């Protein structure tokens, strides 16, 4: 099974990257690059947009049209790119804090428009770059720098949020399931509409250290033991679902795409002139 060589997509002079030992961001980025490689997209026709955070550093390491934007606004910038250049494949690489907290509104409104973006969320349940504060995806009772006695807040189910807001594709995977992940990313890129991918990734240095999983290996084992396939999930009782999460393709319902509608509107107005 010869794999598509991804080194041509990397800015090798920028490596090794700044991420901590065992950080899952590299695994997610690897999967995204393999998906792009499999689809054989032209590097000049791909735009990678990122916001602020550990995960958003990834735009600096890949050799496409890349844009490192302001905090939470990656999807807003990406919307602009897609509307100006509908021929481009626009991929947003963002973190859970960047996407769901600071940029939460941009996320739901881009999903509502069903604009053709592929959003890959590096969901490590923590703000890693600023010292381990709790994020909107930190589960109840998890320890964080701002929740030393356990988190009191409920966590977002990001896939459910995207689906409810109108995204036409939503999927979840983990860095442990690195063979499944590029297949989902590939489907997301091929989907004409808003594609949302929630990737559970490891932050051993902040999340792991505070939650008794100080090694990357422990965090990957946690993902392995707690992820449940969508087929198995549907047969599970609520009691069994406690503490577990579902992975796989959770939602796929094609819907009219925003840039198509916009182009059609322009054509119609030109005719009527």
């Amino acid at each position, binding site marked *: 099974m010869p*794999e598509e060589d991804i*080194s041509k997509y990397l800015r090798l002079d920028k490596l090794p990257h700044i991420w901590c030992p065992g950080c899952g961001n*590299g695994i997610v980025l690897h999967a995204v690059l393999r998906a792009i490689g499999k689809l054989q997209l032209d590097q000049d026709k791909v735009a990678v947009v990122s916001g602020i955070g550990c995960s958003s550093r990834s735009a600096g390491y890949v050799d496409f049209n890349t844009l490192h934007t302001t905090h939470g606004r990656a999807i807003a910038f990406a919307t602009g790119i897609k509307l100006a250049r509908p021929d481009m494949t626009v991929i947003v690489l963002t973190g859970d804090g960047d996407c769901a907290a600071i940029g939460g509104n941009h996320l739901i409104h881009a999903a509502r428009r069903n604009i053709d973006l592929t959003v890959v969320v590096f969901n490590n349940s923590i703000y890693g770059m600023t010292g381990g504060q709790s994020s909107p995806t930190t589960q109840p009772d998890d320890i964080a720098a701002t929740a030393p006695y356990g988190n009191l807040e409920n966590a977002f189910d990001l896939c459910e949020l995207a689906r409810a807001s109108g995204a036409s594709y939503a999927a979840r995977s983990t860095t442990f399931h690195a*063979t499944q992940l590029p297949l989902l990313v590939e489907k997301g890129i091929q989907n004409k509409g808003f594609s949302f991918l929630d990737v559970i990734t490891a932050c051993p240095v902040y999340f792991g250290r505070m939650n008794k999983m100080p090694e990357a290996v422990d965090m990957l084992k946690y993902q392995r033991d707690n992820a449940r396939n969508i087929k198995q999930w549907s047969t599970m009782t609520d009691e069994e679902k406690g503490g577990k999460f579902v992975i796989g393709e959770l939602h796929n319902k094609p819907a009219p795409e925003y840039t198509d509608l916009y182009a059609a509107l322009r054509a119609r107005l030109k005719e009527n002139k």
Partner: protein
Amino acid sequence: MAEPENNAKYDIEVNRKFCKNCRICIQFCPTGVYTEDDLGGPIIKFPEKCNNCRLCVIRCPEFAIKVEPKK
């Protein structure tokens, strides 16, 4: 890196400049190709066990591992 005498079918290469000793390749290799050095870095101890499943390649967060058929 010393090339051990063996009948390995695949060339495994770890880029030491990129590797940060996270132990993922060592712990999750299904056939036990790697062992650990003093700092937690991988030693390619049993390359003949490699069956080219490529899990270490895709799970390496540092883009450091290459597995290719032996020429």
